[in-house]
């Protein structure tokens, strides 16, 4: 019987830090086995070889910030059977979406002496604002085990197992004492999407929202609790204006305190 063709995997980069695609190379125990199950067809960070598309699964890292990238993402979509965004940049615009709250021309002149050389859009936007996205994997950075699960899910035609509940559930499961209740440490855990494993509370620090909003987050109520703890309005703005600043629930909450 002829052996089935290995599905083709592609990894694309837009404006980002490379950390989410690095998560694939950080699967030190699984990488070579994974390469046995899928053909790593396009992954410039790891290989100079390029296998032509179309691709069965495209992982897209980074946000859209330039006119050229706004075109390129459509080519990526056309070449992909499934398109999965990985990380906060691709899913919410990333930390660079802080420009969306300011005048980008001012930003350019702060960093670059000759702004005329720089071509950039006024906003940093998530991939789903430009093309249809089959699945969004959260995190800044993503959790590499969730990434492996997503790849496996798409190869087997099942739904990825990435629960949309809050970080609080992960604290309870790990047996971590609530930093907000027990120590009065402001924590975004109650409104933040699970996936990291509640790392910050485990290290005695409040969650700072790397995985973006959970499903149906009550940001308003959390802000009120933070205010009880003595957090000032300007610090509430900063807290919601982090790596997922442009995700709608966080954006609206930060604007409410401005």
């Amino acid at each position, binding site marked *: 019987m002829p052996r089935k063709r290995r599905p083709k995997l592609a990894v694309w980069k837009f404006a980002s830090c490379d950390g989410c695609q690095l998560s694939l190379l950080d699967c030190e125990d699984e990488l*070579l086995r994974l390469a046995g199950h899928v053909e790593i067809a396009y992954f410039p960070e790891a290989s100079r070889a390029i296998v032509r598309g179309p691709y069965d699964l495209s992982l897209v890292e980074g946000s859209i910030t330039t006119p050229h990238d706004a075109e390129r993402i459509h080519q990526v979509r056309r070449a992909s059977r499934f398109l999965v965004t990985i990380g906060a940049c691709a899913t919410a615009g990333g930390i660079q979406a802080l420009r969306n709250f300011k005048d980008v021309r001012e930003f350019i002149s702060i960093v670059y002496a000759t702004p005329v050389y720089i071509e950039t859009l006024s906003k940093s936007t998530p991939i789903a604002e430009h093309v249809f996205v089959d699945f969004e994997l959260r995190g800044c950075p993503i959790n590499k085990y969730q990434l492996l699960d997503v790849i496996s899910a798409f190869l087997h035609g099942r739904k990825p197992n990435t629960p949309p509940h809050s970080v609080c559930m992960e604290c309870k499961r790990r047996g971590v004492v609530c930093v907000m209740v027990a120590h009065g440490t402001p924590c975004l855990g109650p409104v933040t999407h699970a996936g990291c494993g509640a790392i910050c509370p485990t290290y005695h620090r409040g969650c700072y929202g790397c995985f973006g909003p959970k499903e149906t987050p009550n940001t308003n109520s959390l802000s009120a609790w933070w205010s009880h703890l003595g957090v000032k309005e300007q610090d509430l703005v900063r807290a919601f204006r982090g790596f997922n600043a442009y995700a709608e629930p966080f954006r609206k909450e930060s604007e409410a305190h401005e």
Partner: protein
Amino acid sequence: MTQNKTIKVDSLARVEGEGGIYIKLKGAEVVDVKLKIFEPPRFFEAFLRGRSFAEAPDITARICGICPVAYQMSAVHAIEDAFGVTVDGPIRALRRLIYCGEWIESHALHVYLLHAPDFLGYEDAIRMAQDHPDIVQRGLQLKKVGNEIVSLLGGREVHPINVRVGGFYRVPTKRELSPLMERLQWAREAALETVRWAATLPFPEFERDYEFVALRHPVEYPFNEGRLVSNKGLDIAVREYDDHFVEEHVPYSNALHSTIKNRGAYFVGPLARYNLNFDRLSPLVQEVAREVGCEPPCTNPFKSIIVRSLEILYACDEALRLIAEYETPDKPAVKIEPRAATGYGCTEAPRGILYHRYRLDDDGTILDAKIVPPTSQNQKMIESDLWHLLPSLLDAPQDQLLWRCEQAIRNYDPCISCATHVIKLRFERE
């Protein structure tokens, strides 16, 4: 008739980020070489304005997913400099330890997965693993040990969460660190094998008279502290950086080019550190360096793969020492009191010196930030290496010529995401 030709590699592979090379030849003469960085700009220095000092280590980590610890370390040292705080004892030791983890992780990634395939003629490490499974496995497992250190101290490998101005949020007990000892003992052996193996790779004859720039500490191989020195007479405090180095904006790149005032291009990274600080390495590393015939001066950039391997060995050795001497501190961080001031920090990222400067107001709000990553400092030298390398390659078939140019660029382990806070290759024969 003179033949003109343009050669370009539109998208450089096996580097972190997006860049290309553009080469223009007129007959046998090299007319132009440009390292192009298209990585879209992300404006970190702009949006740091108005953020709290406490957020700087988390935000600047996001400049680079490969070396987030370097950004965190430069940020905390610069801000502590502004606030007049010195961190020492076990907290200082833990900072060295997490940096050891990042060097091991980042160098093992580059040596085995990004650079070695060039020397052995493979498109990537996965194809290399079909013929050399044990070698690639060793690289992956070494990388994993580095990541284990970063994860244990930082909470996770990419963008660790535990680093703060003044120290850490939580410090490990001695007992929590002890499982790393056994792993590091294995890693030290694997690093020894790495050095011996790297030294057998085929190296092109290519030596240049570089100006190397690195930190130099009175007794240690440098991570977080020291003076900035070079082999051409530079010897300054970190806070004098802006008096001696300038950044220029060129039209074809989204990354700023750095030069030393009145002298031009300079070289940062493992080769620079090694040549300037060989006497600060542990006896084991010095001995192995002599054994494989790679003592300084080492001025062949292709041999940076050996030097990176030697630095992995050093980082394993140093991590073992730090863990053996570690005593859990009473507090995870020293007390921080903001004041209006400007602070300067420079640390040795895996790819070379990473400079941060912050101007802060009296409640600790950032008024102004400057960040100079190693790859923007090396950009000019990378281009200059290509100018010097190309004449010897003009008779080679174009694909070989291009591959050799790519390899020469990878000598610097360029991190393009960092440099724009690239590489594509374009080649032109008119």
